[in-house]
């Protein structure tokens, strides 16, 4: 568990969280990027860009 940087609610995390993975805050819906896992540090995820995809 760690705190959402947007709303302060507790965010549940998977055990196998990877740096670069996105997690959603179930309280406020914010997309958060894991920028570190030891200890876990979350930041706001980048906004969708037009050239993202396959």
């Amino acid at each position, binding site marked *: 568990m760690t705190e959402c940087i947007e709303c302060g609610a507790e965010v549940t995390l998977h055990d196998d969280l990877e740096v670069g993975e*996105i997690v959603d805050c179930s309280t406020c819906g914010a997309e958060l990027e894991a920028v570190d896992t030891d200890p876990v540090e979350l930041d706001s995820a980048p906004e969708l860009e037009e050239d993202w995809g*396959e």
Partner: protein
Amino acid sequence: MNFGILYSRIRKDEKLLLSELRDRGHEVTKIDVRKQQFGLSEPPADFEGVDLVVDRCLATSRSVYATRFVDAYDIPVVNHPDTAGVCADKAKNSLALVENEVPTPETTVAFTTDAAMEAIEEFGYPCVLKPVVGSWGRLMAKIDSRTAAEAILEHKETLGHYEHKVFYVQEYVEKGGEDIRVLATDGEPVAAMVRSSDHWITNAAKGAATDEFGLDDEALDLVERASDAVGGGLLGVDLMGTEDGYTVHEVNHNVEFKALNEATDVDVPARVVDWLETKAEQAEVSA
């Protein structure tokens, strides 16, 4: 072996790959492309000791440039930057398919709204207008009338950046509400699925229903030829079934496979890693 995963976001696809690589005892070097600076001769320090770089950049622009630099450093990289360059751009993609005699929808590119309007009228309604760079079915327009065409072209000309002034007009293919995604490694299919939707856009990213699909000889042949057309690699080949056979509308170079992995019994990440191991071994031999 040491596999460098070039990324900016770890999607489920990357997690599947990372897990498979680690389970097999490989070293994995995660390289966040956002933190790199690419000079003209020496690779960034993060690439030290990597046997094969696997491009999983989410942003097409980064994928195209980063793979070009990595290749210039003589570090083996999949997919090759030439493949990325062709697949990243729908116009280049279409040209490559036609040059290799792969059936693909009729397409016209124009650079002004007047010329694009003429092309649209020539195709008749409905027809399709797509951005040359883009994915996940975004900014695709099925044009049902001249008034709709005028509005879309005006919006693109006024609001879009320069790439939106490359008007990519395509025939509307009646595909029966579905298309087919094939994941292939150097032209050899790993697995395939059919994507169905009531909407004319049938991307999995748009919520299309998916189911396993068995490829017939015609499709197998087209997947191999489409792969060859863009230079091979780990690719997502998209086909539509028509009354006259299949037509290939695009080949994706940074293919996502989580939906395919769920839709089929094939262990997709395992098959992908089989192929990555082969590529790394081949690179080691030729080094």
